[in-house]
């Protein structure tokens, strides 16, 4: 009898875990997503402490060790764990520094497309008759071009380089944020709480940023992770085509472009940078899938 009496006294938080904890318990059940997270953390550490972790300067050329195979293979030396490239530069150092560059490009282009994307999406959602259609038409035009091709076109005009790569990728990923924000805003605007805060006299800006936007964040976070991975892919593709970050900067795609000539005799020069790209993109996609499932269970089976 006494146990029944004590039950109502329990803290309400015991029944309803905090949103963060609820999210975490859903997220950690997904083993793939957890693996992706761990790999990403490793990559972030590599990027932050590249100059400490890398055994050599990524552009330093060891003329006596051109195309040295990795340490475990015949002819390799423990001096260069993953071998050297055609100019005698240490592969491991270049890959570690490449992580910094790829993450930088990914992060910067996500920020530069997320912020304007949210603003345009909010505008389009709040002004469905005037500004909205105009913005959406503009986004449709941008979507008509395959993203890589649009990025190639932009870089072709502005010239290759790190900043222009970021700029091009940010522009290319803008439309999906705008569409996503607008769609989320449109559904939220019909909810009772929006009407309530309108009646309470909330201004448009307050409605936009304080009432509506926080409720639209879940799909945006998922989209941000997914476009992070496609930013890394596109940046590498641009680098590979010779339109991205220029050599001797150790960008993974750029490294592959110069590796093409050694395909017959140095497998490590060709395989390792691509493997780095593949694993990072895979890790981020796994992370994104986990985030989507944990943040929005409704989307679970929607490919």
């Amino acid at each position: 009898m006494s146990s029944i009496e004590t039950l109502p006294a329990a803290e309400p938080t015991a029944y309803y875990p905090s949103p963060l904890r609820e999210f975490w318990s859903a997220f950690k059940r997904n083993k793939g997503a957890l693996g992706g997270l761990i790999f990403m953390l490793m990559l972030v550490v590599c990027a932050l402490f590249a100059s400490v972790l890398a055994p050599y300067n990524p552009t330093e050329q060891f003329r006596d060790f051109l195309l040295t195979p990795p340490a475990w293979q015949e002819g390799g030396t423990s001096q260069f764990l993953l071998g050297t490239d055609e100019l005698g530069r240490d592969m491991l150092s270049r890959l570690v520094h490449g992580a910094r560059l790829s993450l930088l490009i990914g992060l910067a282009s996500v920020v530069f497309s997320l912020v304007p994307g949210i603003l345009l999406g909010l505008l389009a959602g709040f002004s469905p008759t005037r500004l909205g259609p105009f913005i959406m038409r503009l986004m449709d035009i941008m979507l008509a071009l395959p993203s890589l091709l649009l990025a190639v076109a932009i870089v072709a005009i502005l010239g290759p380089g790190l900043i222009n790569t970021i700029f091009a990728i940010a522009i290319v990923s803008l439309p999906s944020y705008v569409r996503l924000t607008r769609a989320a805003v449109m559904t939220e605007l019909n909810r009772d709480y929006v009407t309530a805060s309108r009646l309470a006299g909330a201004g448009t800006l307050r409605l936009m940023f304080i009432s509506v936007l926080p409720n639209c964040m879940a799909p945006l976070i998922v989209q941000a992770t997914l476009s992070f991975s496609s930013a890394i892919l596109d940046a590498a593709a641009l680098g590979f085509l010779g339109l991205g970050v220029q050599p001797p900067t150790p960008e993974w795609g750029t490294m592959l472009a110069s590796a093409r000539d050694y395909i017959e005799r140095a497998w490590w020069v060709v395989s390792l940078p691509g493997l780095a790209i593949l694993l990072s993109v895979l890790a981020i996609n796994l992370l994104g899938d986990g985030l989507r499932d944990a943040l929005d269970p409704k989307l679970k089976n929607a490919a």
Partner: protein
Amino acid sequence: MLSFIARRVGLLIPTFFGITLLTFALIRMIPGDPVEVMMGERKVDPEMHAQAMERLGLNKPLYMQYLDYIGDLAQGDLGESLRTRTSVWKEFTTLFPATLELAFAALIIAGTLGVLAGVVAALKRGSLFDHGVMGISLVGYSMPIFWWGLILIMFFSVGLGWTPVSGRIDLLYDVQPVTGFMLIDTLLSDEEGAFLDALHHMILPAIVLATIPLAVIARMTRSAMLEVLREDYVRTARAKGLSPNRVVFVHGLRNALIPVLTVFGLQIGTLLAGAVLTETIFSWPGIGKWLIESIGARDYPVVQNGILLVACLVILVNFTVDILYGLANPRIRHQR
């Protein structure tokens, strides 16, 4: 249905003009003097400079330049390549079949394997096969295809010597271009072994180009199929005692294919972008390689109108998919 098509066409027109504005703006966004950029390293004397500005119409006000551009486009004049002096339209039409052939091959691979893998994965949900398909398709979806191409070349062309490294066909064969599709042309010609050679050249690029669409289609088919198999009409069909195969393929797959078809259409854009990379790796003489080479050579008329043509192509494909989707699904047709 007619009003549905009319509405879609209505949406097509502003998009088309938007694209022309974009390609028009592209060439004017080149930093610095366009004539000097186009002339490259050479020094340009002022008189020639003025002539070039005149010839390119760059001395007129911007809106006039745009109207001129639209006028030229309306007459089918897409300018000529600075390098080869042939018209952009002609270059596009000679190179396009190569890209189309490659894209077709890739779509066939991606479509058949993707749908098959997706259906089987959905039927055996939770099995080893299901996990395998999902895992592989996630890897495929994350694949940097330019690297994938290099790896395949390294294994199959360099290592095993099974396939050639580049091009569409061996130089030994003299095949007359009739359709532009190498596989068909080689069959029409009487050159012995030419067809097999063309097939050998095509297999690796097609696999590379098919990788991402294959992954997307497999995932999409699986989830659409899982959704459909839960529907009441599938249970009814089962209860009526229809054979499991009939239920899966006639009742299930047919309905599951509608979202898959849309994805199929959306993949055309991915395919064209992928073609840029694939054609560069395999030296495949299509429009992707053409565009990249033109960018490298600063051949601006080709870059500008080549991009315009590709964009129009994507718009048309999306339009067709939209219409087909409307035909297949009345609910879409009567929206709004």
